[in-house]
């Protein structure tokens, strides 16, 4: 597994564990599908919870009011790109 795939899997586990998604496995999360609304079905409280998890796990801080935050949360692929760009390890 390359570094990018490993990060994608790590993010999937983070989403499932943090948001306590029942009966969802990493394989169920399509990297390109929307995380919110019609895709995985997450809501605004999940967005806040994910923002906190990203800060704790990767040191990535997001501004809830910023225009590009919505773009970063569009899909798992977008989230992965965000972490690759801004992670603080």
């Amino acid at each position, binding site marked *: 597994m390359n570094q990018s795939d490993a990060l994608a899997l790590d993010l999937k586990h983070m989403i499932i564990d943090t*948001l*306590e*998604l*029942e*009966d969802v496995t990493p394989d169920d999360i399509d990297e390109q599908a929307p995380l919110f609304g019609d895709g995985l*079905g997450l809501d605004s*409280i999940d967005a806040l919870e994910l923002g*906190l998890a990203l800060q704790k796990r990767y040191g990535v801080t997001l501004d809830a009011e910023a225009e590009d935050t919505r773009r970063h949360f569009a899909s798992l692929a977008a989230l992965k790109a965000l972490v690759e760009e801004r992670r603080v390890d």
Partner: protein
Amino acid sequence: MKQLRLSEWLGWAPSRDSQARNACLLPPEKPGSSVPSMLRRRLDTPGRATCDILSKLDPDARFPLVHASRHGDANFTLAMLKSLADSAPLSPTRFSMSVHNANLGVHAIANHHRRPLQALGASGNEFNALLWEAQGYLAEGYEAVVIVFSEGELPEDYSGLAPHPGSACAVGLRLSHDDGRALVPVTSRRCIAPTPLDVIDWLGGRVPILDAASAWRLEEA
């Protein structure tokens, strides 16, 4: 004032052994089938049982719903207090669910319920408070009211410091003025703060009187 009548009741009491069970107790394992999984994940186990009871006693979302809990979701509340004490950020999910009417809110979303909803805490007088609220809605002209009384697990830190039934439990009643056995007020022998388990024991016939600030017996069938 017209007498309250018990049309139907349901309980959830995993701590009760199988011999003490009856047809009015829900299965102890995995409550929450009445709520879609994306909403269910935010409820603790007694919250899930509360929603199942509400759904079965008000399947068409027609009646006002009143929920009481003395301590609410004490485990999550304590976890948030500990986070604050450690200057750690609060979980947005836990914060959003920390209000006393959270269970009713989730149930209402899941079942498209648009009638009155009310959540109570009454320092041990929850059952009588539920009955008073039910009387109020019935006096307003509603055909029936569903009340649910529940308690979650008490955090270990509070053990011995707070009155509690000892285990998670919930009980719900559909009340009206014209259907079922009457709740008859009787002289209270001792003023206790009944828990949901006490109410289950009374409704299930294990004890004839529910002792409380105002005591009750059920009319003979």
